[in-house]
C-alpha cells in the first residue's frame, strides 16, 4: 500500500470512521446545522449546546465515508468545552491543514489528535469530505439555517 494511503487511513481515522464518538441526537441543543455533499452522499447534522459562549456539549449524526465520519467525530472531541471563538480559530487551523498541507501555518503537531487529518491534503478529491463537519460547525455557531456544502 502507498505511503499516502497509509497516511490517509491511519488507525485513528479508521477507528473513528467505524465507531464515531458523540454520534447521537443531542437533547436540549441550542444550535444545529446540516451539512450535505450531494455528489458524494455525505450528510451530517451537528447539534450543540452553547451556554455563555461555551460549547457545553456537542454531538452529530449522519452518514458518509470514513474520512467524513472520522473528521466529525474528532471535531466533537476537540471542541467540547471550548469557547465559541476558540472553536472558530480551530476551524481556521484545520481548514489550513486540509487545504495547504503539513507545511501550512497550522502546525499539525499542535493540533493533537486532529493532526491525523494532515493526510487528507494529498487527496484533493477528499478534502471536501474532511471539511464538511467543520463548515457545518461554523454554520451552527452562526445560526445559519441554510444547509452547508463543501462541494
Amino acid at each position, binding site marked *: *500500500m502507498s505511503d499516502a494511503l497509509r497516511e490517509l487511513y491511519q488507525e485513528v481515522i479508521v477507528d473513528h470512521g467505524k465507531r464515531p464518538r458523540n454520534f447521537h441526537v443531542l437533547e436540549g441543543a441550542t444550535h444545529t446545522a446540516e451539512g450535505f455533499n450531494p455528489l458524494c452522499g455525505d*450528510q451530517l447534522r451537528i447539534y450543540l449546546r452553547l451556554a455563555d459562549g461555551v460549547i457545553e456539549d456537542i454531538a452529530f449524526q449522519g452518514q458518509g465515508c470514513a*474520512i467524513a465520519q472520522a473528521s466529525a467525530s474528532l471535531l466533537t472531541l476537540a471542541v467540547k468545552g471550548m469557547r465559541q471563538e476558540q472553536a472558530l480559530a480551530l476551524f481556521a487551523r484545520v481548514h489550513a491543514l486540509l487545504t495547504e498541507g503539513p507545511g501550512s501555518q497550522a502546525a499539525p503537531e499542535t493540533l493533537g489528535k486532529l493532526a491525523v487529518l494532515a493526510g487528507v491534503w494529498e487527496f484533493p478529491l477528499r478534502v471536501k469530505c474532511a471539511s464538511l463537519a467543520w463548515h457545518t460547525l461554523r454554520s451552527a455557531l452562526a445560526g445559519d439555517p441554510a444547509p452547508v456544502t463543501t462541494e
Partner: protein
Amino acid sequence: MNPRASRLQPLAKRFEPYQVERLRQAFPILAQRIYGKPLVYLDSAATSQKPQAVIDAMSRFFLEENANVHRGVHYLSLRATEAYEQARAKVQRFLNAAHAEEIVFVRGTTEAVNLVAQTYGKVHVHAGDEVLISAMEHHSNIVPWQMLCEQSGARLRVAPIDDSGELLLDELERLIGPRTKLVAISHVSNVLGTVNPIRRIVELAHAQGARVLVDGAQAAPHLKLDVRALGCDFYALSGHKMYGPTGIGALYGRRELLEAMPPYQGGGDMILSVSFDKTLYNKPPYRFEAGTPNMVGAIGLGAAIDFLTSLDPVALAGHEQAVLTYATQALTAVPGLRLIGTAADKIGVLSFVLDGIHPHDIGTILDREGIAIRTGHHCAQPLMQRYGLAATARASLGCYSNQQDIDALLAGLAKVQEVFR
C-alpha cells in the same frame, strides 16, 4: 484516409475469436501507468476510452477538412458538409433508421431528452396527461420530464422495479393508460446494467396511443440496435459512451413526428427564411440543429461507429458477457460484498457495496492501485433511495475490459478490506 486509421480496420476484422489484447492496443490511453501501476479502467459506463481511429479522424478533420457546414460555396465547406452528413448516415445505419433525416445531432442523450420534452412534449402533453418513466432512470431521463410536467400540469408516473433490478412489467402495464402520452425508459440501466424489454414496452405503450422515448446511452456501446425492430418513436444516444468524443450525441425520431414538432432552439441553420415579421423553419433534422454544429464531434462519432461496427457483434457481446460472468462470480465470492443489480438480462455494469465501508473510501484506495471505478449515486438518486443506499461503488466494462482488470479489482478490494479490518 489516414494511414494509421486504415490499418486499424483490417486489424479489427481479425478479432475472430475476439482478441481483446489486440483490441486494447487500439486504445492508447490504456497503456498508461497511474501511480506507477498499470491503468485498470473500469469506468466505461461514465465515459468510454477512445480508439486511435477516432482520435485520428478528428484530427484529420481539423488538419484537412475544417470549414463551416451548410453555408459556404467553397471547396472546404463542401467537404466538411459531406463529412458531417456522412456521419449522420453512419448513425442512421447504426440505428437502422429508415431515413437520414430522422437523425438529429445533439450534445448528448441529455440534450436529446430535453429536446423531445420541450418540443414534442410541449405540443402533446397537457394538464391531466401522464408521462411514465421507471424507477431506474438516470437524472437526465427524470428531470426534463419533471420540468415538462411542472410547465404543463401533467403527472409524472414511475414504474417500479424488483430487488434484482428488473422492471415489474405487470405494474408498468397497469400504469399505461389513455392519459399516458409518453413513456421514457432507459434501454440499459447505468447503475444496474439491466437490459429492459423495449419491444414489449413499446407494444404496451402504442396499444394505448402513447409514444416511447428510449434512453440508449448505455445500450449503444454494447447492443446491436435497430430502432425499427424496437418500434420506438425516439431513441437517444451519447457519443462519448460508445468510444466517440464528448459533446456529441444523436436523437432518432420518426420522420412524421419530427416533421410535426416545433423547433427546439432558434438560430442559424434551423431556418428557411427570416424577416422581422416572420421566420420559416427548416425541415428536420436541421430545424433542430440551430447554430454551427459540433462538426468534429459528429466526425468522431462516425469514426466510433466505424470502429464499433468493425467488431463482430456476436464476438463482442460474447466477450463482454464472459468478462461480466467472471466478474460477477468473483465479486459474489468476496465476503461482505453485495451486488446491486442482478437482472437475468444485463450488460457489464457491476454496482456493489461492502459491509461497513463507504464507496468513496473504496474508490480512493482502488485509485491508488491504478484502478478507476465510479462511486456515488451515479446520477440516479431515486434508484439509490429504492435500495436504501446513499451511494454504491460501480465497476463498468468496455470492449477492452479483460480478466486481468477483474483480477486487479479483486486484489484492490482485498487491500480495501485490509485497511478497514
